[in-house]
């Protein structure tokens, strides 16, 4: 009997010890307070002293990130070590690292998540650093605004990804459309898609979209609304305006295309994983598309590029892609700034990004030697500077729009596949989440 009592006592003691250890662990996790301030004065170039810097980004930007890092490493004593994380794992990986204080020196973030992450204090303040750049006012304003929290700046553009209309020139020719002219209005977009559909070629369709993918349609439908002169969010990013007249026109257009059978099958279940595939296989006539994929798509398809139009004209784009900043956990702020400073330089913007058919993030570099070679790239660069182009800013953007099963996904599915009369209710549900 005695042994069993002492065993009981022992297990209680062990459990208590475990609890104590746990509490200690928990305390460790929560004791980081704020960014480390960089010592010394802030310069435009930062420090290039051979430090090793870590950089995280997500897989869709692998091509551009690798090109940038290789070019930087070749010309600097600092060396950047790049880690590419699968898209779907990125938020959880960054979250876990932020909790344990293990964020890399630099990390990129989908620009629509940036307001949330800056508010949570994941980035170090680089207001002063950005102020030292002579071309600070030429840097893409959409990205800068998304990375501004309470008048402090935390993020610079890493890679811009814009939405534009891609069309298949071969299919356009076959359908009797002008292969040098993409749709200039929403109605033309519909007519072009229907014309390609009318070819009646098995396996070839007018257009395509991600019917179960919030992010895809934020990226491609919002510009149609902006180009028509309407907004999708109020200035504070807490109220949804997705029930306006132009928005309804956009939904009606897609609904009509769906009913006409002009949307490739699978749109209804498309979660975004194969959203861009059908066009690259030459099976789709015309669809709004990520501009960063121009080099990829051009390998298999004769691609025409035009800006996303509004109901009666106008042009707009979703200035997406990733912003990049110095993490709160970095102890090498001056060295990390050296990378960021170089990133916005002409060497990087034109010499690396434009050379790889990516969009430049500075308005003064839009007309560069590479854009002159390919009018499609020039089109993309130009629309980035259109006054109707936007980067929407909302703290709860992910939850309201991008997350699977978000209220925005419900809204768009009802508009295209279900009962369009639910618009007011669905729009209110988006506002509910934005305002939380």
């Amino acid at each position: 009997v005695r042994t069993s009592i002492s065993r009981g006592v022992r297990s209680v003691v062990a459990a208590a010890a475990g609890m104590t250890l746990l509490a200690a662990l928990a305390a460790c996790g929560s004791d980081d307070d704020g960014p480390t301030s960089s010592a010394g004065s802030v310069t435009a170039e930062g420090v290039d002293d051979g430090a090793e810097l870590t950089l995280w980004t997500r897989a869709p930007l692998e091509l551009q990130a690798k090109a940038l890092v290789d070019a930087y490493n070749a010309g600097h004593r600092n060396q950047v070590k790049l880690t590419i994380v699968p898209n779907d794992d990125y938020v959880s990986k960054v979250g876990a690292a932020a909790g344990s204080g293990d964020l890399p020196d630099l990390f990129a973030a989908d620009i629509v998540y940036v307001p949330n992450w800056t508010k949570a204090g994941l980035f170090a303040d680089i207001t002063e650093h950005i102020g030292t750049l002579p071309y600070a006012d030429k840097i893409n304003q959409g990205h800068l605004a998304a990375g501004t929290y309470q008048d402090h700046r935390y993020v610079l553009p890493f890679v811009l990804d814009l939405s534009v209309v891609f069309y298949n020139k071969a299919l356009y020719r076959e359908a009797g459309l002008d292969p040098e002219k993409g749709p200039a209005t929403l109605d033309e977009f519909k007519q072009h898609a229907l014309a390609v559909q009318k070819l009646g070629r098995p396996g070839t369709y007018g257009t395509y979209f991600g019917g179960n993918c919030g992010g895809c349609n934020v990226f491609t439908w919002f510009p149609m609304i902006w180009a028509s002169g309407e907004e999708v969010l109020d200035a504070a990013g807490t109220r949804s305006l997705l029930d306006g007249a132009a928005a309804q026109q956009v939904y009606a257009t897609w609904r009509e295309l769906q009913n006409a059978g002009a949307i490739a099958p699978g749109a209804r279940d498309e979660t975004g994983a194969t959203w861009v595939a059908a066009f690259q296989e030459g099976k789709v006539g015309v669809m709004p598309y990520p501009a960063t994929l121009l080099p990829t798509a051009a390998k298999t398809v004769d691609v025409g590029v035009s800006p996303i139009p509004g109901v009666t004209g106008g042009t707009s784009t979703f200035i997406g892609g990733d912003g990049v900043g110095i993490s709160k956990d970095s102890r090498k702020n001056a060295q990390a700034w050296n990378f960021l400073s170089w990133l916005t330089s002409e060497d990087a913007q034109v010499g690396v990004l434009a050379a790889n058919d990516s969009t430049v993030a500075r308005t003064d570099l839009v007309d560069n030697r590479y854009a002159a070679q390919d009018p499609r790239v020039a089109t993309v660069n130009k629309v980035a500077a259109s006054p109707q182009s936007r980067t929407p800013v909302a703290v709860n953007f992910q939850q309201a729009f991008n997350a699977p099963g978000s209220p925005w996904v419900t809204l768009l599915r009802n508009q295209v596949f279900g009962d369009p009369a639910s618009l007011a209710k669905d729009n209110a549900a988006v506002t509910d989440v934005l305002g939380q």
Partner: protein
Amino acid sequence: VTVAPPATRDAPARRPPVRRSPARRARSRAGWAYAAPTAAFVLVFFVLPILLVGRMSVSDWSLFAGNRGWNAPANFTAAVDDRLFWPAVWFTVKYTVVTTVILLCLALGLALLVQESTRWTGVLRTSFLVPSALGLASASLLFYALYSPQSSPLDAPLRALGIADGPVSFLGTPGSALWSTVALIVWRFAGFYMLLLLVGLQNIPAEVYEAARLDGAGPVQTFRHVTLPLLKSSLALCTILCVTGSLLAFDQFYILTKGGPDNSTVTIVQLVYNMAFQGQNDLGRAAALSLIVLAALLVINAVQFRGLRGKED
């Protein structure tokens, strides 16, 4: 046939009242040493995480901002009040019932099919078991391609057979998404449960069947009154594994449907994941829901054990 295990025989009266002998103490120390690695493993990878989850569940703990202090029981009420909580519970239960019934019936059928040793049993057993060698995530990706309207190789045969007249939307409606996922799970796990049941079948002594035959029992009677009762413990094991596994379903839905269409295939574990990493970014709430799931699982398994044991006696 009943032989009581030796341990219960000499247990009560004969325990020595004095302290243990040195030899016994050494042996017990060795026992502790042998168990230590496992104990350490369980402590680090099971006990500590559970305690941490407990701590999170009563704290305002955001993914990015970390722990911001106690808030019990706000996380629990918020988790249950989530608009997807009851739909997810209902869907998970429905999925579990459907999967368990289909899987076990099919696995039993397969086991009976390959029970006898004939020329083909080796080939059949292997081919039924092969899908089990594939990771669930890989299998899900395989089926994702199979179900994709753009690349599905199923399209042409279905059309040729006149079953479909256009591209089939395997994941496009709540019903088709559920059944498509069940098909994947049945394909992936039927062989595994077949193996478990096969072992049970082969443990039934041949004499019992002979006696039944001498008594004039037909194949149906033999199955009902001999095979099923003697297979009960194997079936119980399979049921518990299958129910627990299905209640915790995540990978297959995460890859195939992401909970869509229209949130119709959000399982309870997926809801935990969504709370933690998909927008709400609220680890506290996700932890609270995890604990609710854990408690439910404990209750369900206790009921199952009791029910199955009761029937055996």
